[in-house]
């Protein structure tokens, strides 16, 4: 394939190149939202994961599909951390920043580590683009920037056009492969194998041979550029990580939610009904499930969020594993039908992939600000169990537990994810399906059609030892009964507004959910069993907080970490745990929602570390707060 090599058939380096080893590297690709940055980030992640690095990713893109070209609002980025040891976060500071235009440079440069590598596409630094980014003069001539970073000015657009010339592509189509030129260059810089990406290009565009050729040439062109040019003197290797043995794949949070749901339904011996409405960042759950028809999964794209939730109530009544997934604004609309789920005590799952709020808020950015909505966002005393996944891969296993909880206790369950978990990815140890624990589902059997007795001796609200009512499904002879949103009489389920019955039924529902604490794992703590400082975190902040705690422990600090996955009810030993430490810190991506609950429930003076910027915590932010609390 020498014809596709660019600068020369057998490129020779201008100077001998050094190869150095690195323990862990953070790269960020950034450019215009049409520049294909998500694609190259994903390719780099796949190649690194397949190689055996631990990886963690953070895609960051604007809500607009194509914001005006070259503007600050239109910048799309993809950050990944790849490492030779266990990592939990996409990294605080960027080691290598690839900026495809001035706007991308401007919005991302503050995150580049001092002394870090900066690769810029100089061809896009023309007057117009500089102006759109708000630069009066070119930052590439700025002595301050030049002294702070190792800057590589690459005329990427021109070099790439040279690489793909002669294929008869329009200028626009030629420039489309520019992102792969950048990827090729970074592949060289980090000693990555190009082959999986070349294979991917060939599969993806197999119907367009000229596009395949252009992309291959671009990728190799970038690689060879790094190899040949004097600008790059060193390239780096990041050895394989020592993950536990087994087979791995990469998984995003949304994929893991979808697969967890599919697997849970099979484990329960049931089919899955998914009623949803498109919403960022939850839509990929609908997309993934809608492909799995041969797994017996029915997906219903409803007319709105309300109908999606209502259809789930109907499917649950009909005996399905019934699920909806949405994000904040959608969950608000679902609130009424979720209350119907509480009143009718039917099993169902409500996935909330949290994003910045209130209202439309920050559709593509992460936040943890729907915790109180999940607890209290319905009329009446309306208890719903809540679980929160801590990483992309965790979504799979926690979802199976959520479904088990829903059918065991006959209740809706809220499953909290967030934009960071949903779109982020990590290596996932592939389970064997046969090793997953089945979910037991019991439907009362009816009597033969010719049997004696009145239909009305079936008691739809007679509870078992867990407080759960029977799940009698339509089509069962003799168990015909009516449910609904009006208050039910205890045991019979008939409509009943009487004073004492209502009090009793509210308490029945509350006690049933509270009782789940006896059936979930006890809370574990990383670090000392008692001491100066306990950090309580939940959901997608796991990685940053755990890394911060590990660093602090290594530095001899007295700090412990309890990461919650079960939010309602809390694990039953949590109250006792919080009292074993002098201080409690609760870092959250909201204004203090878990803090309010922990303070209220356990009467402890918990302090918050609150970040509401649409971005995950940096490890350093948590470390700094730990130090501050231990010093004061």
């Amino acid at each position, binding site marked *: 394939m020498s014809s596709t090599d660019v600068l020369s058939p057998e490129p020779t380096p201008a100077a001998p190149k050094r190869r150095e080893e690195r323990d862990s590297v953070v790269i960020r690709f950034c450019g215009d939202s049409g520049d294909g940055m998500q694609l190259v980030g994903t390719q780099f992640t796949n190649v690194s994961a397949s190689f055996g690095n631990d990886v963690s990713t953070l895609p960051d893109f604007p809500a607009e599909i194509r914001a005006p070209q070259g503007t600050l609002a239109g910048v799309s980025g993809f950050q990944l951390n790849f490492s030779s040891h266990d990592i939990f976060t996409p990294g605080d500071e960027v080691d290598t920043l690839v900026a495809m235009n001035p706007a991308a440079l401007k919005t991302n440069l503050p995150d580049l580590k001092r002394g870090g590598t900066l690769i810029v596409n100089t061809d896009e630094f023309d007057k117009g683009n500089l102006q759109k980014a708000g630069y009066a003069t070119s930052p590439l001539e700025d002595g301050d920037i030049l002294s702070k970073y190792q800057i590589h000015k690459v005329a990427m657009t021109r070099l790439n056009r040279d690489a793909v010339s002669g294929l008869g592509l329009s200028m626009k189509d030629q420039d489309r492969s520019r992102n792969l030129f950048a990827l090729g260059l970074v592949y060289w810089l980090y000693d990555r194998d190009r082959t999986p990406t070349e294979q991917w290009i060939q599969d993806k565009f197999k119907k367009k041979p000229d596009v395949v050729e252009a992309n291959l040439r671009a990728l190799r062109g970038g690689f060879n550029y790094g190899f040949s040019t004097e600008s790059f003197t060193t390239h780096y290797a990041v050895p394989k990580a020592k993950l536990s043995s087994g087979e791995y794949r990469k998984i995003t949070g949304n994929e893991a939610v979808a697969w967890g749901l599919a697997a849970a339904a099979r484990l329960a011996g049931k089919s899955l009904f998914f009623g949803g409405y498109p919403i960022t960042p939850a839509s990929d759950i609908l997309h993934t499930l809608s492909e799995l028809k041969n797994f017996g*999964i029915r997906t219903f794209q409803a007319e709105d969020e309300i109908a999606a939730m209502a259809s789930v109530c109907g499917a649950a009544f009909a005996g399905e594993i019934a699920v909806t997934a949405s994000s904040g604004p959608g969950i608000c609309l679902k609130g009424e039908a979720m209350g119907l789920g509480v009143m009718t005590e039917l099993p169902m799952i409500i996935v909330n992939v949290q994003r910045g709020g209130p209202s439309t808020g920050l559709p593509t950015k992460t936040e943890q600000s729907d915790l109180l909505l999940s607890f209290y966002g319905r009329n009446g005393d309306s208890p719903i169990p809540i679980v929160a996944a801590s990483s992309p891969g965790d979504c799979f296993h926690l979802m199976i537990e959520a479904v088990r909880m829903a059918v065991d206790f006959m209740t809706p369950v809220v499953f909290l994810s967030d934009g960071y978990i949903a779109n982020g990815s990590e290596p996932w140890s592939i389970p064997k399906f046969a090793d997953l624990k089945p979910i037991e589902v019991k439907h009362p059997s009816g009597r033969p059609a010719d049997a004696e007795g009145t239909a009305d001796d079936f008691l739809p609200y007679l509870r078992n030892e867990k407080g759960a009512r029977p799940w009698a499904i339509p089509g069962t002879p003799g168990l015909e*009964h009516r449910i609904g949103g009006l208050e039910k009489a205890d045991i019979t389920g008939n409509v009943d507004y009487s004073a004492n019955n209502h009090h009793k039924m509210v308490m029945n529902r509350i006690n049933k959910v509270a009782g789940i604490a006896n059936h979930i794992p006890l809370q574990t703590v990383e670090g000392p069993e008692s001491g100066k400082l306990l950090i309580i975190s939940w959901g997608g902040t796991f990685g940053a907080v755990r890394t911060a705690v590990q660093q602090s422990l290594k530095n001899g600090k007295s700090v412990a970490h309890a990461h919650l996955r079960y939010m309602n009810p809390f694990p039953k030993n949590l109250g006792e745990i919080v009292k074993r430490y002098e201080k409690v810190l609760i870092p959250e991506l909201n204004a203090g929602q878990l803090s309010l609950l922990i303070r209220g429930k356990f009467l402890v003076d918990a302090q918050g570390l609150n970040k509401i910027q649409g971005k995950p915590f940096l490890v350093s932010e948590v470390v700094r707060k730990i130090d501050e609390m231990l010093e004061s």
Partner: protein
Amino acid sequence: MTATLPVLTPKDFASDQEIRWCPRCGDYSILAQMKKVLPTLGIPKENFVFVSGIGCSSRFPYYVDTYGFHSIHGRAPAIATGIKTSRPDLQVWVITGDGDALSIGGNHLMHMLRRNVNLKVILFNNQIYGLTKGQYSPTSPVGVKTKSSPYGSVDNALSPLCYAIGSEATFVARAIDVDIKHLTMVLERAAQHQGTAFVEVYQDCNVFNHDAFLYATDKSVKGDHILYLEHGKPLTFGQTVKKGIRLNGATPEVVELGKGISEDDLLFHDEKSADPSLAFLLSRFKHPVFPEPLGIFRNVVAPVYDDQVNKQLEAEVAKKGQGDFDKLFHSGDTWIVE
């Protein structure tokens, strides 16, 4: 399926719940006719589900001894879609009212209809909010004085059937609570339809809107105010004088028969017409300018949503086999750590 079904009677469909509609409410008649029709359909009792929203009519499921779901305001079509899509073996009825279906639930009604979910929908139209004690509804005529419109309502009224036809409904019918035989026939026809069967029933709220339909029920005048539709027959009506509907260009007009006008000059009803224009034209007939048609406006065959959904599932299983999770987990790039 069992070879022989037990013989069911209306009594088998009576629940043990005390009926709490006002005395002489039109709902009683609809309930009675429903209980008459259900045993005749050849469907086991346990395979019926009644789903309702909120309002007086929506108490209906409590009074039939089948599976029932008295849900939330306006959402019955969506809940029923969830049931029917996942359980095509069930016959699912939706009971709703003018406020429930057309106001708070208007969106769900439209989408159920255009999808053609195999549901039977009965809309009790009494042109008033009864359960909340008498506010004007989306079908209340302009000028009506109610608790929330003491100076007369300025809201333009909506015809449920126009809405249904505009939403691509495949079965559209109208009946009156007091015309028992005709109501029974319409319910039977609705039950037999494959797809969404939408039936509007004029129902008297004798407390908050009594005699809103007197023009269509009073024996001394109703002959001039209603017109019974029969497939393949000319559109005729008349209390004493035989009248008919003739098209003048695209405009319908009322004509007297005789004096050179025969039935052959009239518009003939065709419920099976693929083009909904005739059904729509009929749905626009409003008292007192035109007689209001009763019967089946439209009854056409079209793909049924829940059938299509389930066929896709079957086709995928036939093509790829029952989904294998281990295969799914290993799809795409995987790697082994020793």
